[in-house]
């Protein structure tokens, strides 16, 4: 009985000593919450199918009004006319955000179009 008690005391003492020494040797773990907001992804749309042959097509160029963009598009228009003499180049300009009405006009009047950000 006495022998058993001795061994019990030795065991408990060792355990407690390890508990004290333990934190000195163990790692620290920080658990933090994510600050990121959840995004509800909008429905995704694919670009329109490509127009493989541009012969005779109506190509729209949209300028969002950013300064100097008109000079760039003027040159692009000239180059497109050189490369695609049968195609028609239609020029548009408006706000950054096309909006429903302008988007509808472009869809109706052009076979394809390029939007220039200018930034």
């Amino acid at each position, binding site marked *: 009985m006495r022998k058993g008690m001795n061994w019990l005391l030795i065991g408990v003492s060792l355990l407690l000593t390890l508990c004290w020494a333990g934190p000195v040797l163990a*790692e*620290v*773990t*920080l*658990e*933090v*919450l*994510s*600050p*990121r*907001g*959840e*995004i*509800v*992804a*909008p*429905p*995704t*749309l*694919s*670009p329109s*199918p*490509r*127009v*493989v*042959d*541009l012969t005779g097509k109506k*190509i729209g160029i949209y*300028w*969002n*009004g*950013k*300064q*100097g*963009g008109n*000079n*760039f598009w*003027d*040159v*692009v228009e000239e*180059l*497109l006319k050189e*490369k695609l003499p049968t195609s028609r180049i239609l020029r548009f*300009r*408006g*706000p*950054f*955000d096309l*909006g429903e*009405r*302008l988007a509808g006009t472009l869809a109706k009047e052009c076979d*394809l179009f*390029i*939007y*220039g*950000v*200018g*930034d």
Partner: protein
Amino acid sequence: MVTDNFGHDARSAAEDSGMPTLRMVKVPAQEFYKRRISKEEIKPVALESINGLIDALTRPLTTQEANPKPKKVEMSKAIRITAESYELAVEKFNQSFLDNHWGDGLPLIPPTQKRVKWMLAGTGRSPHEVIGTVAPKNGTATIEKIAINAVMAGAKPEYLPVIIAAMEGLTDKNFDLLHVATSSGSFNLLIMVNGPIAKEIKMNSGIGFLGHGWRANNTIGRAVRLSLVNLGYLWPAENDMALIGRPSSHTFYTFAENEENSPWEPYHVSFGYKKENSCVTVSTVGSYEGGMTIYGGGAVAPWTAKSILEKMIKDMKNDRRIFGLFKRGVANPAAHPRKYIMMLHPECAIELQRLGYTRESLQKHFYESTSVPYEDLSQEEIKGIQERIEASIAGGIILADVIPQSRIPVFKEVLKPGGKVPVVISPEEIHIIVGGGIPGYTFSISYIKAPYAPTSHQTKLIRGATLTKAGR
């Protein structure tokens, strides 16, 4: 077509709009901006890009392009960081968050569960309550997420209702957050607190009111900054394209109006709130050129309220240039009407009040003194104003150029002999605020009319506070 340095921003915007596989053709930024001044100069850039353009238009879509999948944003509720000691764990946490673009460059407070719970004790509102979505990537702002960012900023729980109200203003559907957050113009935010809560949480409204040293001012502003970074998924040179960066970018201009030394009613009361209410006003302002102008005050050069008023009017009169500069379909910032924040130092406000001015009569005085008699307008100016009126009615122009429908009759009425055409859309676009201490400076901070939403200025009631008497 975009410049290469805006490529990341453009792709990000395409994803936000639901078209992640939109075809883009890039031109070198280093060449485009300096050469766009004329057709001859820009020709080599256009020549380089034309084949890429035709290819983008004609090459059939790949399977991936034709079947885009939405970009999944991995959301983990909690992140575990382990290190040999607490200090090393905090260092590792800071580095990890910065590497992920979840911080602001300054050390953060770890948002542990315990710490966030402590922060949420500052409001009686539910942590799951949705405040809105934050541009540009439209992450959802809940009370809990705002609290997490507030912990990171080093704020105290009693500041949380103020931070929430600021975020309510910024996520209001009428507020143009997209422009201030992402524009290359390096625009800034003014975050002003009114009402008794300002004193309770010890905000600075006196000397140094736009600077450092006050935990409430600085951490409220920082919590808003971190919320924009993390809920809007905003990052410099990726989609936050402020080319120079902003002064006070970490904390914005966060302060309380100096109601104690003001001769007039507090700003929020002039908007119809009660004096015992507490409110936050968020407003987009300029940072650099045309952004902030000092008119007088201080402790060195002499000044009078009258001389300050005259200088302000003279400066505002220069906005007359917008008349002749408006061209339909051309995005010219110099042609956009402006909004003015007139920050009067207390001594100046007191002097103006002695001269008989109220806040309202001062707005009216600015508006009328800067209006230009019809007879003084040039033909080009008259044409520009007429075009702007017609375009505002027809639509299809950038919002920053639009005269609101309610003001069109006013402009039509004055655009004839005997009339006076205003350079400011309405007297309400001139905001009179008393800020700073004694001595102080009077200055204006202005901003163009917002381009993506109706307004760049919102005032919201602070509510749900549990740790202060005000804001409940």
